[in-house]
């Protein structure tokens, strides 16, 4: 639905200035997000943006839309409730690795397998930013942080592999140092009719010196041209490689969003149980 005048990236800015540290990777992601929204011509009042708690979860304060800054780790189910209740809305979730993959892990497989048409943008800095630098589930083993003075004892979680195992219908990875590529991924993810996950490598220069723009650049590489994003096993294999690939790992084209399944169920129930008539339903208890 193009509006009279095309919305520009700046039209998605609220008056609030981001409170992130200078050099924070989240700036790049935010800008790419503004651009994707503008490219897709999402009208602000049709945008519902959810987040949890963390530096990255502050993003909704800076985006024109109907925004919801909830509690730590619960943005996905909140967004699902919203999408099911008003499927017309463009529903996006943003948050950090701690928010999504530590306290929020329990919701991931379930929201994913239900496949609502939601885009989940994970700003992954491999650290807890807001609480000042403890390990995150994505922090590499051995990393020293304020909560691991002699190095982390835990092997990290692989978000892309996990999401592929959960059978997400769209799984991608981007890098906030590549805003153009990131914008493209956001556009694809939001356009995908079903659950879309974008893992964004987004450095935290304040607390994580092990993952900086500089250290990432040599490691990051686009997925090989011949990668078949419709092959789940191949996607999984790519996710396990030491190379940090960016791009779309997996994209399943047959994707019936959860809200559509609910719509069919409604029709079916009317078919079997008749038109909604509360008094009639009550009379059944005579």
């Amino acid at each position, binding site marked *: 639905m193009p509006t009279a005048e095309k919305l520009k990236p700046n039209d998605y800015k609220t008056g609030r200035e981001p409170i992130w540290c200078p050099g924070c990777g989240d700036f790049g992601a935010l800008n790419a997000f503004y651009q994707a929204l503008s490219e897709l011509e999402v009208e602000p*009042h049709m945008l*519902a943006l959810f987040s949890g708690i963390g530096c990255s979860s502050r993003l909704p304060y800076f985006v024109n839309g109907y925004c919801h800054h909830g*509690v730590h780790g619960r943005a996905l189910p*909140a967004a699902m409730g919203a999408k*099911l*209740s*008003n499927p017309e*809305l463009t529903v996006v979730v943003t948050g950090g690795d701690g928010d999504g993959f530590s306290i929020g892990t329990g919701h991931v497989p379930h929201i994913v397998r239900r496949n609502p048409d939601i885009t989940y943008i994970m700003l992954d800095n491999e650290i807890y930013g807001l609480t000042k630098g403890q390990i995150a589930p994505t922090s590499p083993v051995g990393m020293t942080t304020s909560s691991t003075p002699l190095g982390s004892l835990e092997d990290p979680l692989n978000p892309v592999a996990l999401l592929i195992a959960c059978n997400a219908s769209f799984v991608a990875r981007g890098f906030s140092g590549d805003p153009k590529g990131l914008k493209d991924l956001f556009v694809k993810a939001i356009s995908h009719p079903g659950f879309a996950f974008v893992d964004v490598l987004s450095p935290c220069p304040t607390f994580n010196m092990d993952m900086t723009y500089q250290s990432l650049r040599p490691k990051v590489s686009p997925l090989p041209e011949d990668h078949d994003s419709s092959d789940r096993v191949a996607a999984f294999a790519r996710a396990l490689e030491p190379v940090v690939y960016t791009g779309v790992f997996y994209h399943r084209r047959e994707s019936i969003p959860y809200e559509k399944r609910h719509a069919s169920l409604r029709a079916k129930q009317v078919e079997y149980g008749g038109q909604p008539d509360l008094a009639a339903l*009550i009379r059944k*208890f005579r």
Partner: protein
Amino acid sequence: MSAPHVLIRIGGEGGEGIISTGDLLSRAASRQGLCIMTYRTYPAEIKGGLAQFQMKLASDPIRSIGLRFQHLMAFNQEALDAFHDGMLKGGTIYYDPAECPDLSKVSGEIERVPIPLTDLAKEKGGSIRGKNMVALGFLSRLASVDLETVAGLVREKFKRKGEKVLDSNLASLNAGYDLGDQTIDGRGVKLTPKSQRGQSIVISGNEATMLGALAAGCKYMAGYPITPASSILEFATRHLPRFGGTVVQAEDEISAMASCIGASFVGKKAMTATSGPGLMLKGELITLASTQELPVVIIDVQRGGPSTGLPTKQEQSDLKFAIYGTAGEAPKIVVAPATVEDCFYLTAKAFSLAEEYQMPVIVLSDTNLAVRTETVPEFDVSRVDVAERLRPTPEQMKDYKRYEDTPTGVSPIIDPGTPGGLHIAPGLEHDEYGTPCYTGVNHTKMNAKRFRKLETLSKRAEEWMADWAPVEGAELCIIGWGSTKGAIQEACQMAAERGIRVSHFHPRIVAPLPEAQIREALSKVKKVIVVEENFTGQFSHFLKAKFKFDPVEVLRSMGVPITPDEVLEEIVKVHETLHPAKPQGASYAHR
């Protein structure tokens, strides 16, 4: 004493049709214009345990069912052994001789009548699965319930199973009825229907709760299975989609609550249903809803705690969590249905309160209400007034403040999808626009705004807020809450018959308290008795903090509903302390 009624218990192995026998019989009785109330317990284990179904049939509305009964139909030895000493004096045990070899434990005063359920079912219906139909036929005759009405219900139930099954069941039913004709004579009960056919329904609290939600316009329900709340979710899955809503069996209680908040944020009426352990998991998100001022209804069907506790048993022990269970200070409303009828109207009311005051409303139901069925006047949907959220005036739209600090505390709300009302719902403390703001002045102002909504509500002192049965000249007043109401009412009546006048105050809203009404109730009496089904006196504690008085606390945590007799006993005791029969000296020596 109490009005004419009959009390029947059926007991046997879970899965033998105990529950459906009771269900069909009571429903048929209700269709004939009788009032019924039923009470059932499932085995705590999954299968093979002891199940029982108790019913009371009467001409007049029934308030409580008690734990004792006149007639016991025992399907097996275990049921006989477990239940025989719950019989009232002069009662009769009907037992299946094929399954109950040993009657030696039964007291001599109890009459015992063998009813060959197994044999008759085999012989007449061709299958021992028809045992419960034999029992149903027999009990129909016992309670003078019209065989045709019963048969009609049996036909409805089995119509999908094919002619053969149906015929076999009907044959067993008739055999049981005929046997009754031969056996029953003096034991038969004749009750006169008072209400007109077709004006009542027979329904459980959980079903009534979900119907109330439908009546209020609920459009989103998410829950996670938990005894005894699961049937609310199950009922919702069968009907809510047809009414244009969405039901999700969530991955846990936290997700269910979060998704309700999401649904409410986009403007839909949303609810969840759970029991104690699940309620605790929702605490953080209930607090969020309160802070973001989003309406949401949480049904808590209480069960026996602590922790997994007594998961299939009755207890009223989640009250203090419902009232106080937030870290930080977040207002919410708590209501407690006292009857199955309340489950319908009060749940609908809960939605109105949530929408009107933009906050979470907890409905404290319990196991007793959840699973018992009861004859109630057919719910009148037109009596439900459906409230909607406050919308901004055009004036307010010029500078829209989602959290405008108004005299009532309630701010106008705009739903996503609507142009012009863009805003953020924050969990951080915020100013009127929703922008984070951490000054002390702002925090105090917003606290005051949020809590002002409770003041606005409690000032309204409306009739639905409490049942208040003042008795002229009463020195005593009983305060109860939730499903103890019927037992208290009967106890008050029994006390009156003994010349002890007792008033009864039973709030439907327990937080905020209907203060003016309670003060009035307290002002009229010498002594207050608070009745609760818990160990620590949770409501009493709350009342004491507000009203600084010294009630007698009648506390029961036995896993079963309190009975009128138990309440009466306490009334008599308290009455005696006010009017000591003995000379003063002796009475003091007692202390």
